[in-house]
């Protein structure tokens, strides 16, 4: 038995509970809600057990590897140190599993405290997304690299995961607060800004300005080498960027979609009284996005052989056949899915307000829930920054290096500081602070995934990127 079986079981539990919660949107029986929460809680326990199990698995592996390398059997305290030094959040697969764990924990806490309708669904969808991302990575346990052998990894990564999870959930709560707050927020403004935000998200996932400069959407190439899948990125880290394959068709479509989102977003804000404008713009943007999602999925599923162009590539790459699959761009797919999710929520908000707005609790409750989640996130981000600085000082000799991930974490911290000051000091609770809370989500994405999306260079936090 492997820890992955625990994870599979808990994933199944989350899927079932998501289905129950989806049913609960239409049929608001308490029984359904309770059953869903029970299943989520049980799955969460199973996942926790899986993580403990994986810790032990990794521990035994570390002990064996260390014993083989040292040439003697370990006992007592030294055995314990080696056994526990590899926590289940030390590579990308484990980090994504751990992110989903954090998200479910925060969702459950929200559920127990405030019973927020729709937040539970969003939490579970985000957790499933994280589990899906994890599934695309290598799940085997490898011995820890020397730099990660430190007790700081425990508190640093634990705080980071819960901080990011709380921030993501808080962003959804803020969005729902904006949707519910019909007195102060115009429907057209929110939808228009939502479309523009989706445009920004698409811009980030398509590689930032590179999309418009090269007119291409880049995807990594994969090839089978024996039983394992070789990734171009693994071979030569410095040169990896040049082995990315441009996909001009999807690139141009992506540019069109980004521009369309911006234009229609602006148009919706302008023509606030025209109900049809809102509906048709949203539908058009949604269908375009859905189209590109289908195209990308079709491209990935087909896994057709891909010719490698250029003389150099022929000499440097192992023999093909090369292909593109889900594993070629998991982060972009995840973000594409989040963009679609945002648009689905906007559509529900516009077309079936009864399902959404009447189910949501009052605006003050939503805002105070978001405030608390963001306070938690802010506090934990401080812990992340401080423990990161201490660890960096003792491991690398520099407490702060403006490394991309460090800078990203600082950006999130500053965003939440702005949120807290807006609410507490400037008295700008309400739509203004909620908008900052939503922006926090985008900052989290850029800060947490910026390195993986290719927006920034690798930096020092590349252990988790594989």
């Amino acid at each position, binding site marked *: 038995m492997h820890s992955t079986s625990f994870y599979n079981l808990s994933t199944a539990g989350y899927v079932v509970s998501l289905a129950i919660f989806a049913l609960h949107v239409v049929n608001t029986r308490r029984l359904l809600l309770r059953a869903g929460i029970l299943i989520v809680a049980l799955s969460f326990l199973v996942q926790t057990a899986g993580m403990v199990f994986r810790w032990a698995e990794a521990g035994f592996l570390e002990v064996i*590897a*260390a014993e*083989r*390398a*040292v040439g003697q059997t370990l006992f007592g305290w030294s055995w314990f140190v080696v056994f526990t030094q590899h926590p289940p959040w030390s590579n990308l697969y484990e980090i994504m599993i751990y992110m989903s764990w954090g998200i479910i924990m925060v969702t459950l806490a929200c559920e127990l405290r405030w019973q927020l309708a729709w937040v539970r669904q969003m939490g579970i969808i985000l957790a499933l997304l994280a589990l899906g991302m994890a599934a695309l990575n290598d799940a085997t346990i*490898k*011995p820890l*690299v*020397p*730099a990660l*052998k*430190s007790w700081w990894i425990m508190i640093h990564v634990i705080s980071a995961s819960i901080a990011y999870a709380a921030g993501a959930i808080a962003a959804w709560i803020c969005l729902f607060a904006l949707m519910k707050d019909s007195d102060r927020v115009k429907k057209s403004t929110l939808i228009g800004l939502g479309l523009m935000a989706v445009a920004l998200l698409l811009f980030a996932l398509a590689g*930032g*300005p590179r999309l418009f400069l090269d007119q291409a959407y880049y995807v990594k190439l994969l090839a089978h080498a024996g039983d394992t899948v070789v990734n171009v990125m693994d071979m030569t880290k410095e040169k990896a960027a040049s082995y990315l394959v441009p996909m001009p068709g999807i690139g141009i479509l992506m540019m069109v979609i980004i521009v369309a989102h911006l234009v229609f977003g602006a148009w919706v804000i302008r023509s606030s009284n025209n109900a049809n404008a809102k509906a048709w713009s949203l539908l058009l943007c949604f269908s375009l996005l859905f189209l590109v999602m289908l195209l990308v999925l079709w491209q990935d599923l087909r896994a057709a052989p891909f010719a490698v162009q250029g003389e150099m590539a022929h000499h440097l790459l192992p023999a093909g056949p090369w292909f593109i699959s889900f594993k070629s761009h998991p982060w972009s797919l995840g973000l594409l899915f989040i963009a679609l999710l945002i648009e689905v929520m906007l559509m529900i908000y516009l077309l079936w307000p009864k399902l959404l707005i009447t189910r949501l609790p009052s605006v003050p409750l939503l805002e*105070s829930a978001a405030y608390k989640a963001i*306070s938690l996130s802010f*506090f934990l981000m*401080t*812990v992340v920054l*401080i423990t990161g*600085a*201490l660890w960096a*000082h*003792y*491991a*690398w*000799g*520099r*407490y*702060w290096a*403006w490394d*991309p991930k460090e*800078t990203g974490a600082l950006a999130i911290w500053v965003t939440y500081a702005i949120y807290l000051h807006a609410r*507490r*000091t400037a008295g700008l609770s309400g739509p203004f602070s909620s908008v900052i809370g939503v922006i926090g989500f985008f900052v989290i994405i850029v800060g947490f995934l910026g390195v993986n999306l290719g*927006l*920034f*260079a*690798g*930096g020092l936090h590349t252990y988790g990127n594989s």
Partner: protein
Amino acid sequence: MSYDQTTTFEEFYDKHPEGKLSTHLLSFFELYDAFHSWWFSLAILLLAMNLVACSIERLPRIYFDYVRPRPYLTNRRLLGLTLKESFKVKTLADGEALIQVYLPTTLEKARLKKRRGYYYCERQGLSRFGVYVVHIALLIVMFSSIYATQNGVDGHMVIEEGQRTRFITRRGPGGVSYTDDLGFYVGCDDFRLRTFVDNTPMEFESDLFVAHNMTEKLHQKTVRVNEPLTYKGYNFYQSSYRPVASEKVVEIEVADNSGHQERHRVRLNSPIELASKETLVVEKIYEDFAGLGQALRIGKKSRDGKETFFHIFRRHKDYDRIVRGGQYSVSFLDADQKYATGLSIGKVPGIEAIFFGFLVLMMGLYMCFFMTPIRYFARLEERDGEIDVTLAALGYRNLNVVKEIFNKRLKGLPFTDREGKNA
């Protein structure tokens, strides 16, 4: 346009040839090293000034409210409070007993001297200054980091085993590298690398020492990845290693059929005499033998002078025993490669101040997020032969927590029913 901040000045100039307007603009704004550019420093300085100004602007009000808290629960004061409750009791003693239970302190301490019948106390009031503690901590961190960046050293050095050096490579503005003199020597006696079976590094360490001339050895220490050597404010961190191409020493193990094993550490081409009067010679080291990893070619000279050779593999220790068989088997244990150890040198003057700032920051955040300042007011009034008792509380943040605390204190009151109303 985004600029990759990990590129250096030279790479930047390769990409952007001199003479163009865009290059001048980018150089002016130091975009190749934005985080150390003048405008970024200016922004940080402005932020610090803003922090100071805002704190100064808001501090007096809270400070004077803290030292002169307006403790009397007058009718006018009562209007502004949301958490309040009044009761009627028979005697003054009953009223005092009620207030004693309500207040989280003794009646004597809470009694206000100037006017009779008024009681006041404050809990965790100092935590209202948590925000200022956080801001002061941030200022400490900001200024000590500026000081550390100005006066600190951040460099790199590579020392071969058995060598010593006093020069480090530093990076100046824009990542331009230059050599700097430490003023003393740092030497490496030995470097050890332990690898897992798949040759990924498990642990590496160097025996370092410090010296003031070419002969002495002071301050010897073994440096590992998370354990630096500290000397004169400089920290030497184990950061990397690289092999140095030179003569290699090989460790092999010869086991005969009786189970007797013998280890030999030999140089290339130096013979090993076996008990069976045969001679073995390590002829060649392959770094990667047909994808099977490190391998050795061993020459064998039997008693009658016949010369043959065979291969052994580091990754497959049992290969020789299984494949070749015979009187004895040889396994390849280790090839001692000469290494150069890569050290990161950090001198962060005032790192203690930065860490102190972190401590203060955590304290301030604890005050902000986990403490709830509450003021408790109480009043006794005689009216129509009965005693009016008024209880109130004032919170500044976490208002629902304050409300919970207030209700909890009301629940335990004597002479009242469970809802907190008069019996």
